């Protein structure tokens, strides 16, 4: 096994025992990255920063008392502002943008001694489920079953491809409607979206502020617990960061879920769901039952309306958030013709700078917020959102500890295969994950099996608000029972 294949927990233990140095692990990752250009996972490589941080981490470890993430090399989603390092959110409109500040999440990671290998690819402004909306071309799934190239999912597809192909020990992701959990499922890794307000959004390029949360994408559940602990903080710079102390998530991993109540929501058995996904869900249910949990059927009656509510609320917030890209303060400005005024500057800059999906969402958002439609669409969607949250509140009040669902309606699809699909067909990828964002809950995707084609499939566990520790413990039990140890064979 080469060092880039290590998990965070194994690397941490080896680093502390002095069996390996961060510089050695970092160099191993850097060479793996250089040999994996075919995956297009990294959009910016930062080897100088990585080696400098690794050296500093080694010194800190030698001095004793280094935090768990000290010396661990990571990929950072291109949505996080990183000081002096290109931060483009996969959009032409942020071409050349180098932030003068560091996001709270990445600062927390650097303070803990983590190492930045580079920025990883994503869908433009995190709007997409395949990384095909990225201005620098799609990332490629390291899983391959025929001559087609498959998507690693999206929007955190570069993160997922990088983790699955061992181009880092772990990566940061962000999740607005499923953007951590769907790519994790498509690539056979673990991804957790924490409770809304657990992780600071400060310095993360905004998509839909009431839904966005950052989280870790890792090789194991234990790694997710370790890394989430380092990413999370109470942050005065984010007014929606909730003042609840960050617990030791790893300490919650007891592997014991006897007597816990697991809800199986009947509304998630959707029409047209592949038989394999249903079978996987049943197997996962049996695994938790065998571990001593009590299985109960539950109802989340407004599930069906989550997707349309999401596709009103998220674009509405996006249209406001993305109004800042006007060609004045940062990024791209269109070349203007003689006589062009400021309105032409805005309109040309935004037409040339934003890709088609981002433009579509901005315009949908503009429409649902416009006079005469605000009540009919936006306010109605926010009412439905309140009902979706109430569904979950009632289930948790009835004593359910965690909810088990499929993570995605299919395994990874081929790049380009959805090119002729309507925008709405692409949105269906989020069907099992958006409810969690709308209700502000923590959700985790765990790899559980391979489908008949040989591609990874994941299951999602949904937890109580602020119950990430307990949720991760359930995920650990599922991970152990599933024993998913498959890795993509190297073709790149």
């Amino acid at each position, binding site marked *: 096994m080469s060092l880039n294949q290590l998990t965070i927990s194994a690397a941490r233990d080896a680093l502390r025992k002095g069996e390996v140095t961060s510089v050695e692990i970092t160099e191993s990752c850097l060479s793996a990255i250089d040999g994996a250009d075919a995956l297009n996972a990294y959009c910016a490589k930062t080897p100088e920063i990585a080696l400098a941080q690794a050296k500093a981490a080694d010194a800190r470890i030698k001095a004793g008392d280094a935090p768990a993430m000290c010396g661990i090399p990571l990929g950072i989603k291109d949505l996080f502002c990183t000081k002096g390092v290109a931060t483009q959110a996969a959009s032409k409109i942020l071409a050349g943008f180098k932030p003068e500040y560091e996001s709270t999440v990445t600062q927390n990671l650097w303070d803990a001694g983590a190492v930045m290998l580079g920025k990883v690819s994503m869908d433009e402004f995190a709007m997409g489920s395949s990384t095909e909306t990225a201005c620098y071309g799609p990332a490629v799934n390291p899983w391959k079953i025929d001559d087609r190239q498959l998507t690693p999912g999206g929007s955190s597809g570069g993160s997922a491809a990088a983790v699955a192909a061992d181009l880092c020990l772990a990566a940061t992701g962000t999740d607005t409607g499923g953007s951590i959990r769907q790519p994790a499922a498509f690539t056979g890794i673990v991804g957790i979206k924490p409770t809304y307000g657990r992780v600071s959004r400060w310095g993360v390029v905004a998509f839909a502020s009431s839904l966005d949360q950052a989280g870790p994408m890792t090789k194991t559940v234990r790694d997710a617990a370790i890394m989430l602990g380092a990413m999370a903080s109470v942050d005065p710079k984010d007014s929606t960061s909730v003042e609840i102390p960050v617990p030791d998530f790893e300490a919650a991993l007891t592997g014991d879920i006897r007597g816990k109540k697991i809800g199986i929501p009947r509304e998630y058995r959707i029409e047209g769901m592949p038989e394999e996904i249903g079978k996987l869900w049943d197997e996962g249910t049996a695994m938790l039952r065998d571990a001593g949990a009590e299985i109960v059927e539950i109802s989340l009656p407004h599930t069906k309306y989550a997707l349309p509510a999401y596709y009103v609320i998220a674009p509405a917030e996006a249209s406001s958030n993305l109004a800042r890209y006007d060609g004045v303060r940062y990024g791209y400005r269109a070349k203007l013709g003689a006589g062009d005024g400021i309105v032409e500057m805005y309109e040309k800059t935004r037409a040339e700078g934003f890709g088609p999906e981002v433009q579509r969402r901005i315009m949908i958002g503009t429409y*649902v917020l*416009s006079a005469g439609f605000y009540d009919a669409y936006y306010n109605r969607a*926010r009412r439905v959102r309140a009902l979706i949250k109430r569904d979950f509140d009632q289930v948790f009040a009835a004593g359910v500890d965690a909810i088990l669902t499929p993570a995605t309606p299919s395994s990874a699809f081929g790049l380009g295969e959805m090119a002729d699909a309507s925008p709405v067909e692409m949105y269906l990828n989020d069907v099992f994950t958006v409810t969690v964002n709308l209700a502000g809950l923590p959700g985790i995707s765990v790899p559980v099996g391979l489908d008949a084609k040989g591609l990874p499939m994941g299951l999602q566990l949904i937890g109580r608000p602020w119950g990430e520790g307990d949720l991760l413990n359930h995920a650990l039990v599922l991970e152990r029972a599933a024993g998913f140890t498959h890795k993509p064979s190297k073709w790149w």
Partner: protein
Amino acid sequence: MSIDIDTARKVAHLARIAVAEENLPKLAQDLSGILTFMEQLNEVDVEGVEPMTSVTPMRLKRREDVVTDGGYAEKILKNAPDAREGFFAVPKVVE
């Protein structure tokens, strides 16, 4: 609800995104498709339900209204496509 070409033109302008006249029919069709999908929300009985403002039951934090940051105009201007003499430069706005 279907969106006609005039509405598509208006929305594009409100969003400050230039859309060529020949691309408006496709845009109108895409937007109509998405809005039709959203029509499902009309089936839900939302009588007496307050629109959600915050997913976590919390009051937004407040801080003292004091200056805690600033004084670095050059950093603010550093990423500007056109900055001159300490200002953002834009095409002429007032005749």
